């Protein structure tokens, strides 16, 4: 065995020891895992071990979900007047009060509401709204209405509140990293399928190539360079790269292992959203220390022919969430998980000539799970007092974030959001 391989094995062993103790590898130069554990104790928030600790699943409804046909103001004459073709009949909706109710395509959401586990937040938006999908998504993900922040609200949460710098603090099941994960230090990871989130080697002797790959992607080079008293510039960018390389390598191994071990007993649909939530369920079952998962459900840009299409999208969401929550209950993890939906904007109050709706402003969103208090939160936006055909928002989206951060993830929201926003009291 070459010296190189020996070093590599030794490294693996110390990593494993570290993993069982804290599973955090913030700085590899001259620090021991015992020392790290000590350091973690001083932090405001303790790292979760994977078996306890609360989990947030952020569920993006991409394209701009039509809030008015999701949470239907069935008793409002204005609604039926504005939407002669698209309005949901009062008789079909699942009534939540004498004014509004849920689209009939969401029976499970109705059950959750009755069971006490669904918070519906009305009229969520932000000042000076932007109608571009791109810009408005940025606003939501960065929690910055000027959309210029280079970090995201979840990334800032990872940086501020997650102990150590475990790469697995946040996992996004998307091809590219969502802007909300943007962070100074700890951006979490993103991937689509565990089987592809790895170094792919084309030749023979895979295991051996893997060993070499792992050895080359562990810290060392930068430390050596530093020891040699060489170039400061190399040290920093190289050290940064080595850190990400280690994160990638380590998280890839963990995820692959867990995904291959845990299969859920609950049947999920074959839709992309259901598949994503299924994977999240497996990772939770496997005890990953992840605090935030991010999944996306697309297709909500219903400019034309909305009738039927929008219901199908909602039904997909409803069914996927039903399977996911069933799975979590089966695992005994239901009480630890909350799901929050969001969409970059709602749609215009009035329908358009193509039987659809155009980009609008305020919309509704949901927070669901065992720790949630059912109810309607915020004020329903008025259909009489429209702003150039748009609903005016009544609840700042950052209020939802601050509620989730403080009351669910139990961390201070100000360092993450830059200011204090009134909380909604939807966590029990």
């Amino acid at each position, binding site marked *: 065995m070459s010296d190189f391989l020996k070093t590599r094995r030794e490294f693996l062993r110390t990593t494993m020891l570290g993993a069982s103790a804290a599973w955090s590898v913030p700085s590899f130069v001259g620090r021991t895992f015992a020392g790290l554990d000590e350091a973690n104790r001083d932090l405001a928030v303790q790292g979760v071990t994977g078996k306890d600790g609360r989990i947030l699943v952020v569920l993006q409804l991409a394209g701009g979900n039509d809030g008015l046909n999701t949470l239907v103001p069935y008793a409002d004459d204005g609604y039926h007047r504005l939407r002669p073709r698209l309005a949901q009949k009062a008789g079909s909706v699942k009534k939540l009060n004498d004014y509004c109710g849920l689209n009939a395509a969401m029976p499970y959401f109705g059950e959750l509401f009755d069971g006490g586990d669904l918070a519906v937040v009305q009229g969520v938006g932000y000042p000076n709204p932007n109608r571009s999908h791109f810009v408005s998504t940025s606003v939501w993900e960065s929690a910055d209405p000027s959309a210029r922040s280079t970090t995201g609200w979840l990334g800032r949460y990872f940086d501020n509140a997650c102990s150590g710098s475990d790469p697995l603090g946040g996992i996004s099941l998307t091809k590219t990293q969502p802007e909300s994960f943007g962070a100074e230090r700890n951006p979490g990871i993103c991937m689509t399928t565990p089987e592809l989130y790895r170094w*792919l080697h084309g*030749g023979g002797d895979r295991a051996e190539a893997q060993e*070499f790959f792992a050895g080359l992607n562990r810290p060392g080079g930068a430390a050596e360079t530093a020891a040699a008293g060489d170039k400061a510039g190399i040290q920093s960018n190289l050290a940064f790269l080595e850190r990400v390389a280690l994160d990638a390598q380590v998280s890839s191994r963990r995820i692959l292992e867990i995904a291959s071990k845990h299969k859920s007993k609950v049947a999920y649909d074959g839709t992309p959203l259901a598949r994503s939530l299924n994977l999240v369920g497996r990772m939770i079952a496997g005890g990953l220390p992840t605090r935030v998962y991010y999944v996306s459900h697309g297709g909500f840009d219903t400019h034309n022919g909305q009738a039927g299409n929008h219901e199908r999208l909602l039904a997909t969401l409803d069914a996927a969430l039903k399977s996911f929550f069933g799975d979590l209950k089966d695992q005994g993890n239901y009480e630890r998980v909350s799901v929050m939906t969001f969409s970059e904007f709602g749609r215009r109050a009035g329908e358009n000539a193509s039987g659809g709706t155009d980009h609008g402003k305020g919309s509704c969103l949901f927070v669901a799970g065992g720790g949630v208090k059912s109810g309607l939160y915020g004020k329903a936006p008025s259909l009489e007092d429209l702003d150039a055909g748009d609903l005016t928002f009544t609840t700042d989206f950052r209020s939802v974030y601050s509620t989730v951060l403080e009351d669910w993830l139990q961390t201070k929201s100000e360092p993450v959001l830059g200011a204090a926003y009134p909380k909604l009291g939807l966590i029990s």
Partner: protein
Amino acid sequence: METTREWTLPHAAHLLNRVGFGGTPKEIHALHGMGREKALGFLMDAEDKLGSFPPPAWSAAEGRREMLAQTRGGTEKRAAMANMDEAAREKMRKEIRREAVKEQRNQIDGLRTWWLTRMCQTEAPLREKMTFFWHDHFACSVQKVRLSWLMFDQNELFRRHALGNFKSLTKAIAKDPAMMIFLDTIGSRSTKPNENFARELMELFTLGEGHYSEADIKQAALAFTGFQLDKASGKVSQNRGQTNIMEKTLLGETGKFDADGIVEVIFRQPRCAVFLTEKLWDYFAAVPAPAGLIDKLAEILRAGDYEVAPVLREMFGCAEFNAAEVVRTRIKSPVEYLVQMLRQLEVAAPPERYLETALKEMGQVPFLPPNVAGWDWGRGWINTNTLLARYSVAGVISTGGESGRNSERKMRAGKVAGPDFAKIAPPELRESPAKLVAELCFRFFQSEVPTKEREAFEAYAKVKLGASFTDGELAELVHLMMSTPHYQLS
């Protein structure tokens, strides 16, 4: 600011990496052989022969009106629609839209391949590198512009002005159709001016935040009104009735400024030269500038009335740019990463069908910048997913598509030309793992590789060395060498 005197092979490689897209050992040696002065001149003054890169057929002026009509269905379909009921018409509309989107996508994919191929083959790499700089600086996305030929025209505008005059380019970009669509100059009227372009002009293009007031933006916006665009020809005209010709006051000056006049006022601000110089330094050097350097370089820019070439020449030649903390410390952008890799492996062009996937996964797709502020450079390129993506791109390119996901492999079957390993590593080199690794290290890293890495490469080579190295085994060694933090730097 002193010019550097040292001139070693790594210096030559550094210049080629930063001023251009790197090159082969042979090219580095040739550049080194010229001597420092001549080498810099060679890179600064290089030009491609006219007609070396014939543009995509659809970009030709003649066909555009017809293409524009097609995006609305063309005469035939539109005539047919007149006799349809509403449902059938709606179906037809959807089909037209689908086809238009598909066509536009194909065109932009083609344009991207054309540009990256040009980066791989050009003899004037600085011009392409600066064309990219301007694309990032005046970032417009096809997502909003939609018409591919306008993106092509803008790309050619950047290329023409690449090493030219910053002020002239800014005047031109204010009337560039893609930009006018992207920042809503089209449709801006003197009665209701849209401030989008005026704001970004000062904030992102010329002065930077904190160097103008909201009132300056409002006044400037008045001048960018009344423009009309013929989408087919790309011709811009100004409707006098919709244009504000009144007196305006901004940045301490008062006059009846038109669009060009506003640009002149802004460029009289000394801050403007500093702003661009900082950005150029960041782009090429990518380390914090030593104290005083930016001011000295900015002075050259101002003295030359915003000619860019003199300031670049001075910058590339100065000791600070060639200092140890600059060399091999810059994180390659995904486009540079790919183009450098192709050039190092002597592969003539990027694999067309794989290109968009590769760039998307690595996080930089030309013509689709994330927003008007351009891409987030440096460490912004790197996260666990993009790093693994970079590694797998290296696998696909070095093995010619043999490594990688099954679906991608199928998709690219027969489409990816792998490197010619007989040329890169002739048989005699394959006999000694140490020699082979040393040669490849120079090809890919152009400098001393830390012991740990070199030993790992050699150990891997020894394990692989049976009777002799096959091309496939060499490809895997190359893939391994590129699957390292070090290879992300240049």
